[in-house]
């Protein structure tokens, strides 16, 4: 048992060291708001930055983050060409509320649902909100756990670094 463990850790360390490339999105299916299925690796923004934000209709800080960004989203898009993809982790208890909430809130984001946490687990997320920033090659270059007022400023700075 113990021996296996050590071998495993040593191997992982070794393989990690031998990898120089950036982190990419895992190949996991999510639900679209019109009942369809899409693989998350298929999201596109013509080589411009993409923000992926995990949220839920029952998560106050998540809604605060996305509502705050919604107020300035047009400016962000004009300035940097960024696209925001909001992934709801609402399960079948609150899934039906996602589309009405998104529409009523006037969000212009691309929204998907991850009802049994498959993408959440594949991306190593333990709590929401959790935000990722992807570069032109759709590689994850920055991430942030949680949201407090003002965090959107740091996100914008990171996006600007990619846009220029």
């Amino acid at each position, binding site marked *: 048992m113990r021996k296996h463990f050590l071998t495993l850790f040593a191997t992982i360390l070794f393989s990690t060291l031998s990898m120089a*490339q950036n982190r990419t999105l895992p190949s996991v299916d999510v639900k679209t708001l019109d009942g369809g299925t899409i693989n998350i690796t298929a999201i596109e923004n013509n080589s411009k930055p993409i923000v992926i934000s995990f949220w839920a209709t029952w*998560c106050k800080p998540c809604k605060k983050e996305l509502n705050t960004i919604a107020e300035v989203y047009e400016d962000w898009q004009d300035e940097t060409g960024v696209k925001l993809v909001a992934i709801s982790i609402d399960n*079948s208890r609150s899934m039906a509320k996602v589309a*009405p909430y998104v*529409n009523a809130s006037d969000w212009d984001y691309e929204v998907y649902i991850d009802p049994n946490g498959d993408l959440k687990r594949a*991306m190593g997320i333990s709590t929401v909100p959790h935000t990722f920033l992807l570069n032109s090659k759709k590689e994850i270059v920055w991430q942030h756990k949680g949201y407090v007022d003002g965090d959107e400023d740091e996100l914008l700075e990171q996006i600007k670094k990619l846009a220029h």
Partner: protein
Amino acid sequence: MLKKITYTFIVSFLTLNSFAQNNSGEIHGDFDLNMQSYQEDDIIGAKAADEIILNNAYLNINYTKGDFAAGLRYESYLNALMDFDDNYKGNGIPFRYAAYTIDGLEVTVGNYYEQVGSGLIFRSYENKGLGADNAMDGIRLKYSPLKGLYLKSFIGKSRTYFTYAEGIIRGADGEININEALNLESKTRIIVGQGLVSRFQADNNPKFKLPQNVAAYSTRLNIINGGWNYSGEYAIKLNDPISGAAPEGKNWANGNALMSSLTYSKRGFGIVAEMHRVDHMQFRSDRAPEKQYIINYIPTLTKQHTYSLLALYPSATQTEGEFGAQIDVFYKIKKGSLLGGKYGTKMIFNFSRINALNGGNSFLNDDKEHNPMFISIEGEELYYKDINLEIYKKINKKIRVTGVIAKQSYNKDVLEKPGNYGIVESTIAIADISYKIKKGHTVRVELQELLADGGEGSWSMGLAEYTISPHWFFAVQDMYNWGNHDVSKQLHYVNVNCGFLKGANRIAIGYGKKRAGIFCVGGVCKEVPSSNGFSLTISSSF
């Protein structure tokens, strides 16, 4: 044996991989640690732990390379936090898997999580905060032979703590997205699905001839047209008497459940109307009645509240039988209008009501037969009722306000424990104000009031939080049970928390008294004991 094979497999793959090419796979994961000290406090009934400090931790490792993935989870309970079941004990690797996809076929061996439809007949899932994990161990295949057609089948055993339940679970599910399959360019989109799950468990009951194979099946339909969306699912579970001496042990009635939702939304407005009817529909991986064997999920038909006093008396699905309805309305009053002001005003209204089935759940044996009416509301025992309105307003660039008013009725005898408590009627008001002092610095204050005669009487709650973006937060809160009829229980529950976050790491420490009660995270609730002490939480993702 199985463990050995897994290790050898993963190790050889990784080694091979790192030698073979430079452009190799990726390794990612996350780590979580929750440590809590427990001091005795007679007044709130908190117990001290013999170990002084209890600790839960886990590490997930996922390896991916193209269409191949493998991973494992190391879990450590030394010893498990008091909120957790004692059966979580020691260290281990209870989760490991390997999977690949080729030409539309996805093969997973080892552990996996899966859900059929809404979960009425099957859901294996995990919620680390609540200690819930019924991962499957076995084989799963997913196949999409044609555009718009999604098939999956699986077989395995369901996890219970560090072991697996006796029953063998087999399942299959098919879904057709008619528009995708027929290449229809229609405004109306239709998706239909059919699922079947069956459990095998040998019958070794000397007295009764028990069914060894128990099936459950469900049919679902989703129709979308413009802003309209209808979704419905109906499920049946066949005769499945539970073991033990309770009267339910001699019930061989079939169970069934129906859930249905209709939503409409457009810019600035959304409405959701939902109903469900549940009758004798708990499905388990074993004939035993304990909660760790549950393998289906019947969503609770009430709003998931997060403000403490709104969530003080939460609802939970009565899987043996209930009828419920819920309505949500989302509305944004436009900017520049009289009520909207400069930034607009958001309103969320929610109403839900849950009651018993007429005469109780379906029942069938040699002495008794009962089939409840399909819909019966008037005169049936009320389980839960909630009517609430939330208003959010940005006053100016510095101040944002959320206000909530709610009225809740909570059937304590049904939702908590049988007694003669009756219905707890409560009225709740909340104000949540945040004020931006300067760039990155924000103060947030929450004031909550709950007025009630029944239960533990009235409560007040106050919270002050100071956040410095992007790294720091400090919070102090007090819940005060000033209205408890027992004067010795009119107590303050004070909690202090602070934390540091940077990128993918978050560290938080806390000190204070936690109230005994029902703790809800992500749609699931469980009872936790009261505690008093320090806590440390570390969460990290790589």
